[in-house]
């Protein structure tokens, strides 16, 4: 006898909601505890029921799916969240994962993916729809450290120049800020780059990140 897996479905499209209900109804392991058609309604309903998994659409009126996940997390909701959406966007997937979702399934593949996803999530796994699994992989970034060990330390002027370059200032702007000529800025930059073996602006930025010069906006 399989354990009952309790579900709560949140979607503002009634027909799709009905389709999901029909899909899970075909599996005896699942029990649908309730449904909601927007985020606010879901928050209210989830005060009284405690499902194992909440299936959440992203585009919804009032409170969207990701905001709903955030709110549930703030309320120490113990169940797991599975996103069920039409958005095949890295931004939503990444943000969702940051919020601690357990699964991300596309609506267009739901008939095949919903049941395996629910099962995987229930057992504590992370389930990403195979169609967009590549989006979950971090892109090729920061593969290698940009700067090697410095041969000597940077002067104050060189530091200021590198720092501003990393922040997106042009050489002209840096020159007028420091009250020196554009040629002098170039010289400082090239000297600093030579010292730190930086071969491009990308290297400079990477160096700045390593140094902790950039404070993240978020």
């Amino acid at each position, binding site marked *: 006898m399989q354990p009952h897996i309790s579900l709560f479905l949140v979607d503002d*499209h009634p*027909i*799709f909601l009905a*389709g*999901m209900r029909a*899909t899970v109804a075909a599996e005896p392991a699942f029990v649908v505890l309730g449904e909601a058609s927007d985020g606010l309604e879901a928050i209210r309903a989830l005060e009284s029921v405690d499902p194992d998994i909440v299936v959440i659409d*992203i*585009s919804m009126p009032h409170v*969207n799916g*990701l905001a709903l996940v955030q709110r549930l997390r703030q309320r120490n909701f113990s169940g797991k969240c599975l996103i069920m959406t*039409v*958005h*095949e*966007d*890295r*931004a*939503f997937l*990444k*943000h969702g994962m940051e919020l601690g979702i357990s699964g991300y399934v*596309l*609506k*267009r*593949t*739901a*008939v095949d993916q919903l049941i395996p996803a629910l099962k995987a999530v229930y057992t504590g796994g992370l389930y990403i729809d195979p169609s967009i699994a*590549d*989006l979950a*992989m*971090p*892109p*090729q*970034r*920061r*593969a290698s450290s940009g700067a090697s060990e410095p041969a000597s330390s940077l002067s104050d002027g060189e530091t200021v120049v590198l720092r501003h370059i*990393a*922040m*997106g*200032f*042009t*050489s002209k702007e840096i020159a007028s800020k420091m009250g020196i000529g554009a040629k002098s800025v*170039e010289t400082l930059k*090239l000297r600093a*780059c*030579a010292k730190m073996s*930086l*071969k*491009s*602006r*990308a*290297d400079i*930025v*990477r160096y*700045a*990140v390593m140094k902790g*010069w*950039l*404070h*993240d*906006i*978020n």
Partner: protein
Amino acid sequence: MKISKLRRFEPRRVDVLVSWRLVKCRPFHKIAGPANGLWASHKMSLHALKLLDDFWGWQQRLLTVAGLFSAFVLLGAFTFGVILLTRAGGDVASIWPSNALILALIIRGHASFYLWGAVAIWGANVASGNPLALSTALMGANIVEVGFAHAMLIVFGLRDPDLRRLRSVVGFLVISAGVAPVVGALLGARAVSAASGAPFGDVVLSWYGADALGMAVFAPLFLSFKDWKSDLGLSRGHAMALVAVLLGTVLTATATFAARDLLFICTPLILLSTMNWGIAGATLALCCVATAGAIATFGQTSLIFPTVEPAARLQIFLAVHVCMCLPIAAILAQRRELQNELSTARALAEARSAEKEIQVDQLTRRLWDVESEERARVSRELHDIAGQTLATMVMQVRAIELEASALLVPRLVELRQNLSAHGQDLDRLSRELRPAALDKLGLVRALDALIGNWAAVHHIETDFVTSGDKTNDIPLRVQTILYRVVQEALTNVARHAEGATKVTVSLATAEGYLRVAVADNGCGAMPNKIAKHGGGLQGMRERLAMVDGDLDIETHVLEVDNMSGTTVFARIPLEINHATAH
């Protein structure tokens, strides 16, 4: 000092004699200012000009009775003076300005001066001791001469000659100074010859010379009164300079005439006056020379032609200079008028094009806003309606699949897969139109996803770093523009930056600006390639300009700089955008 308002009358309607009484009411004394030096005289000259303007003002077509009366008195006194000046020689004057004044008054619409002019000339002649019959004959000759000149001017279309036109000046000089004096001379010489016994031919020639010069020098002066204001430019400096030049002319004329007869030394002064003050300056300077010369030649004229040397030389000098300076003044006036028209037209055109530019700018912004809104709407609908419906249809097909015969199932599965593929296309299309993440998750997350996708597609190591304050409160328009700029810059990197293996995108808010820099470590030849292939730089610049932002590019070539790559910088001021956000 303010001039008390002159009482004005419509000259044609008011009988001069009837309104004579009113003349006494005119407070003439108020016009004279305190006589303290040049400035005072300048003030006075201002008032005098104002008065003259009132007297002669063609545009207003109003004339004070006082003005007409003073003109009459002036004419009489003037004529009397000129006769006295020549009386010593007992002959014809070296220059005769009375006819010019009468003609000018008549041209300015005061036909009554046929009568008053006749009275003045006759009176002056009688007063100076000429016999009644001779006075009457001389008066007749002068008035006929004026009448003839007037009629000829009308016939040749110069009823109101505009002395700022070269053709008018030449025509006026030919008719009034060239032809008309012949008539006066032929008529007047008879009487003079009979009275004095001088040979008729000599008298005709003397008379002609005097009248012709009088007309040529004085008539333009009187006629140009109405242009004085614009020609002289009534500023203090101008008035001083004019007075200085005229004084110089008088002194030079007197000195040269008296001393060694080097009158031509006046020429530069007359030309200077002409160049600076147009027809008014020319006629004033010539009058100065004429007056000085007439006084200098006092008692040296004769009825026998050729007249004695100094007077003849004065006449020749004046004749030459009138024929030279008046056309020059007219040409200058015409040129100045053209220049004025040109500059007015240019200013107008500039104002119009500036206005157009603003309109185009506004339209561009509006167009872009409308386009963005429309894109956002279509993008939303693709997701929320088409995408959702497609997903629902997939489910419905699946439901049919469960009940369908085994024969149909493969085809239904294929249909489901097709629908699913369409769903993917719709999502891509929607994201290209406008990424939903930009609206729902903000600029940073949207850019992060964009850059991640780009890196995955092009297999280029890409960093995205951010620094500074939060970007949440940045207007959506600015966010959208920055997003598109980064998108375009990345496209350029993929297309043109050969050998790029690392790309860095940095987003920073610093010192009032939102900055984005997209840097690659490619060959550094991107700008040239963009210039050749026409990348989206212009479009990026235009978009940024809509939110007062700008674009800059830096390149490094390995061989030269020991580092390589191209960086595209975009920056948008934060403050202004808050203000103009809508």
